[in-house]
């Protein structure tokens, strides 16, 4: 039923959306390079609305931007008290939870996007987490999904910034998105939605490439492609450092 709804929506969406208003999007950077001293990054997202006709009457144009990291399969465990100690009891595997997720809007989320549209386009955090298979594993899958959202929000990986987008003359919009220091690699998707009275009128998607570079890249690749050499190299560094410190201190003692 849900799939049918989505495909119906996909059929209808382009007809209504492309008719009037379209997004022209710019990013201050479409690559994030993770270097050794990477300490988070800020991406400026700006754009304009291209239209052939007059600005339509009625509710003003609103903008929603969702940036998502690559989705990964995770296991969520819950602790319960058994025999006096806290142990993991129930566990649920969630098919896809984005490693990073942020939603920025031009107004309160529910005002600019209806619950139904949110569900279809999977915009808000709770809709971005795939919980379909969790329903077969637990009686209360929503608790587990909420836990993911809560833990990652505390870690600064998930966020909702309502009212963070400035819209000028229903045509120009801009916002800045903070990417935290604990970012992982991958293709991040940036989606922009234009809405009127809570309905999506246009949608645009682009990719932000988050990659390790330099030494980070080299070490990461070595550890995956030549694990034995990487392991031996780690040991060699450890032994040389241990010997070096010992020799260094011996020299110091002799000098004194």
């Amino acid at each position, binding site marked *: 039923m849900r799939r049918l709804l989505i495909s119906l929506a996909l059929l209808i969406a382009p007809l209504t959306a492309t008719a009037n208003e379209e997004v022209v999007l710019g990013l201050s950077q479409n690559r994030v390079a993770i270097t050794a001293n990477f300490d988070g990054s800020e991406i400026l997202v700006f754009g304009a609305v291209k239209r052939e006709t007059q600005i339509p009457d009625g509710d003003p144009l609103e903008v929603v931007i969702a940036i998502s990291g690559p989705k990964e399969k995770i296991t969520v465990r819950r602790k319960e008290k058994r025999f006096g100690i806290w*142990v993991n009891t129930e566990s649920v595997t969630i098919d896809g939870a984005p490693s990073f997720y942020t939603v920025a809007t031009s107004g309160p989320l529910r005002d600019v996007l209806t619950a139904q549209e949110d569900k279809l386009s999977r915009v808000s955090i709770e809709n971005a987490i795939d919980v379909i298979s969790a329903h077969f594993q637990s009686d209360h899958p929503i608790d587990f999904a909420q836990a993911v959202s809560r833990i990652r929000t505390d870690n600064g990986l998930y966020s909702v910034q309502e009212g963070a987008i400035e819209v000028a003359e229903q045509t120009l919009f801009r916002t800045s998105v903070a990417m935290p220091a604990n970012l992982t690699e991958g293709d991040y998707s940036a989606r922009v939605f234009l809405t009127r009275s809570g309905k999506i009128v246009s949608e645009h998607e682009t990719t932000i490439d988050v990659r390790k570079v330099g030494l980070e890249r080299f070490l990461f690749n070595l550890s995956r492609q030549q694990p034995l050499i*990487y392991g031996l190299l780690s040991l060699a560094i450890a032994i040389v450092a241990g010997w070096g410190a*010992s020799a260094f201190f011996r020299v110091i003692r002799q000098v004194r």
Partner: protein
Amino acid sequence: MQIYLPIAEVSVNAFLLLGLGGLVGVLSGMFGVGGGFLMTPLLFFIGIPPAVAVATEANQIVASSFSGVLAHFKRRTVDLRMGTVLLIGGLTGAALGVVIFNYLKSLGQVDLLVKLCYVIFLGIIGSLMFVESLNAIRKSRKNTGPIKRKKHNWVHGLPFKMRFRVSGLYISVIPPLIVGVFVGILSAIMGVGGGFIMVPAMIYLLGMPTKVVVGTSLFQIIFVTAFTTLLHATTNYTVDMALAVLLLVGGVIGAQFGAVIGAKLKAEQLRILLALMVIAVCLKLALDLLIMPSELYSIGAAGGH
């Protein structure tokens, strides 16, 4: 100064890591323990993923133990022969431990088992050492002469006797081998060098002099942790070289200071300090199991149980 760790995929303060490495290094040099049982929980606390923390910690222990053992070689407090016997047992035990670990993993609840292992072993060893050291200190205050440890027990009735000159012992190789295997198993399950079990076992079971115990334990730990590092690097890809380098720079320097401090303290004082530390870590872990956690849910990589 923030630094992004390539394998752990988190950004942490470099000086914090240097400081942690240094602190644990001092303890390692003083007591002859690798410090893994302290460092691993500390790394969890600053947000390093557990799998990376355990694997990288093994690599760091190699460095601090190597630095420490050289200091002990200088003072001729390493019993190479005893160390080798323990090592043979240790490597056998580590291989067995990995098998046991994987079996338990298939049953689930391996985390809980590891924590319970910690609480039980740290608790028993810590309190035994504490009581024994207190008694020794009380005795040494009464009569200033050296304390005579019981020289003959059942250990001396076993066959395959061997002379360990540095330790001043003439005992069967069976007890050291068994100690080695046992510590090897535990170190594979608990992800530590096992010095905190090895040191008391050498003192109380084998009757080795405390001064020799530290160097010999470090000697054995180097090889066992090197083996563990390679296993983690090739199977789980969880050794973070950048993290290891920062920890070990602090660690090797700390270990040198630790060895100096250790040489100045009396054996009983050394043991009572180690006992207190072991008990403190045990209590912390026990409390974690008993007190209701603020977050009941936890996220792990899929593919586990």
